[in-house]
């Protein structure tokens, strides 16, 4: 298309060593990071947060409960997306941290007498802490083998907790720390925590992905060798992402079992947690922030209306995931974006200036 001849490089006045303004030859260019749609999205998001925050005053308590469960899936999905969609680490073992978060919360509540709501952040911290040694093992594997390897690790977690009688062993146990708390207060607190987690998750991830670290992460996903040679500490970055994802999953697990009140190794470390996260991300659109949100809403709708169909529902979810991967690799959001050119939560840096092509219009 463009032959080199068309752009005879102009002698830069300054050397690459001491850098100054962009060369004026083709006119100044600026960097754009927002789109008209993204400004609208920001306003819509703020409105949504306000509305959600006021829900306890006008909504029904069953809505709050639903939101809490839904937010656990959502956080899991966002974390899995961070890990797989941005970090290139396809894990099938995030239930390890989900379950761990639940158990840490339960142990702190039942055994140490801590308020379970205060235990949620501690559960996240515990999951993060444990992710560090776990990564040493998991990172030995790549690609599909990493996926199953993480699953084995989750199994080890499950077996370990199944052999600890203090938390009920294989049979699991109930969260007694919340007995005696007023039901309305409990529901309000649970809902508030869930909403806070969701907002933190969305805002935090968006800010992170727009930052330099986010850039580094995408570079690593595209080409590890090159990323390393461009000055990116690949190992540290991957570890950081793994740890953050573990913390998020830990928080989601703690939150889930605070609202569910009963835990058992099979329930806490079931692979279905990760399966749902994968479903949400893949159907919504992997490697985007909007995708999992869309996917989570879709999953919630399907679950609400079709979950009673049992096996057929599960078969349907499986088929849908397979179909999306084969037919719309980019997921629902990717497809929408391609058709409409809309960027709601842009993380890119576009160069806007004379002669530069391919800038999103919306």
């Amino acid at each position, binding site marked *: 298309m463009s032959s080199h001849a068309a752009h005879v490089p102009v002698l830069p006045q300054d050397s690459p060593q001491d850098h100054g303004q962009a060369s004026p030859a083709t006119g100044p260019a600026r960097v754009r990071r927002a789109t008209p749609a993204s400004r609208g999205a920001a306003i819509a998001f703020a409105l949504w947060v306000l509305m959600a925050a006021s829900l306890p005053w006008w909504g029904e308590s069953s809505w709050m409960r639903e939101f809490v469960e839904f937010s656990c899936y959502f956080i899991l999905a966002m974390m899995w997306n961070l890990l797989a969609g941005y970090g290139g680490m396809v894990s099938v073992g995030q239930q390890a941290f989900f379950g761990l978060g639940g158990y840490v919360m339960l142990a702190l509540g039942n055994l140490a007498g801590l308020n379970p709501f205060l235990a949620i952040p501690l559960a996240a911290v515990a999951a993060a802490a444990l992710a560090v040694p776990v990564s040493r093992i998991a990172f030995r594997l790549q690609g599909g083998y990493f996926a199953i390897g993480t699953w084995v690790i989750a199994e080890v977690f499950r077996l370990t907790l199944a052999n600890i009688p203090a938390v009920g062993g294989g049979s699991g146990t109930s969260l007694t720390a919340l007995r005696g708390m007023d039901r309305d207060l409990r529901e309000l607190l649970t809902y508030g925590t869930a909403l806070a987690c969701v907002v933190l998750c969305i805002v935090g991830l968006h800010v992170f992905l727009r930052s330099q670290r986010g850039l580094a992460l995408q570079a690593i996903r595209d080409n590890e060798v090159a990323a390393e040679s461009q000055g990116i500490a690949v190992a540290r970055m991957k570890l950081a992402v793994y740890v953050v994802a573990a913390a998020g999953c830990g928080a989601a697990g703690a939150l889930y079992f605070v609202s569910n009140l009963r835990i058992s190794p099979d329930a806490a470390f079931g692979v279905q947690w990760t399966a749902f996260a994968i479903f949400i991300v893949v159907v919504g659109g992997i490697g985007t922030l909007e995708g999992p949100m869309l996917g989570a809403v879709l999953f919630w709708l399907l679950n609400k209306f079709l979950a*009673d169909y049992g096996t057929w529902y599960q078969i349907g979810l499986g088929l849908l995931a397979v179909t999306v991967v084969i037919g719309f690799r980019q997921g629902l959001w990717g497809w929408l974006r391609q058709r409409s050119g809309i960027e709601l939560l842009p993380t890119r840096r576009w160069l806007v200036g004379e002669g530069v092509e391919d800038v999103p219009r919306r």
Partner: protein
Amino acid sequence: AGPTVRIGYVSPQTGPLAAFAEPDRFTIEQFRKATAGGILIGGTRHTVELVVKDSQSNPNKAGSAAADLILRDKVDLVIASATPATCNPVADQCELNGTPCITNDAPWQPYFFGRKGDPKTGFEWTAHFFWGLEDVVGGFTSLWGQAGGARTVGALWPNDEDGNAWGDAKMGFPPALKAKGFKLVDRGRFQSPINDFSTFIREFKQQGVEIVTGVVPPPDFANFWNQAGQQGFQPKVVTVAKATEFPAAVAAFGDRAEGLTVELMWSPGFPYTSTMSGLSSQKLAEAYTAATGRPWIVTLGFKQALFEVAIDVLRRSAERSPQAIRQALFTTKLTTTVGPVDFRTGPVPGISKTPLVVGQWKKRGKAMDLLIVDNTLAPQIPRQAALEPVRYGA
């Protein structure tokens, strides 16, 4: 249309525990027939609506299904059955949300202590009827008393709700066996699923085990039983719960199922009649086979009884409010398909115990049938055959 009363029902229709829920469709059909004309509650005729949820054999799902029933479907009464993995989370949710709840088909200790109940006060909203560990211990040991001098028992207890309760050093088998002079060989809780039992078999052979007991998921027991065959381990009596309760699982063993013994909480031989369908146990089993083409199954009786109690509670309730229904629930006194249910007489408040006997699989024509061979604990239920030691082929 008049007011509606809603009942929520949770059971493991899919997943590894699905065998327990096999009679669901049949029983629900009968329930619908029985309540087609509505129920009189406090003098008002209420239309009855049943909302069914699948726990997918997942305690987690069971809990959220119960929460959905209470908060979204706004049911007045929740019922659930089949193993502590279903009953406990459902009951926990009901307790928390102040909804009356009836459960069955899980030994009462794992139900009660697994939920950290207080034996003095019991639970506020949840009641449960089934037998307890003391019954199964009593039944098994009495059966083994018939086995002519066999005193060494090998245990297969997995690390799950049931296995942990059965093997519990305080309330489970170990102290009882000791008291009755049996020698116990217990290698500890195993993690199910387990592919290989040779370490168990080796130990059992070395210690001269003649009786094998446990509460084992079907695939695990199949492994054990095949490997016992391969390694020439031939115990006289094999009384293993769960694995050998279901006809389909037993059919998988072919001839080698003959002589296996198992606790029996209901069978066509039970001398009780359903208050819901009016069928005797024998007739109930026949109706089931006629409707489904399958042999009768032990959980059939408990499904029937669960719905019987639910209808009874609603009928006796003064009005359609949680408090009134709870009041009626805890004052239940009803003789159901599986025997009398009365939550005030139980070992702890809110628990009612039902009779338990022991059965043995015997060949009848081509198929296997489960016949009552020991009724020491419940003499009102007639014995159908004598215990025979397990026979081994040439």
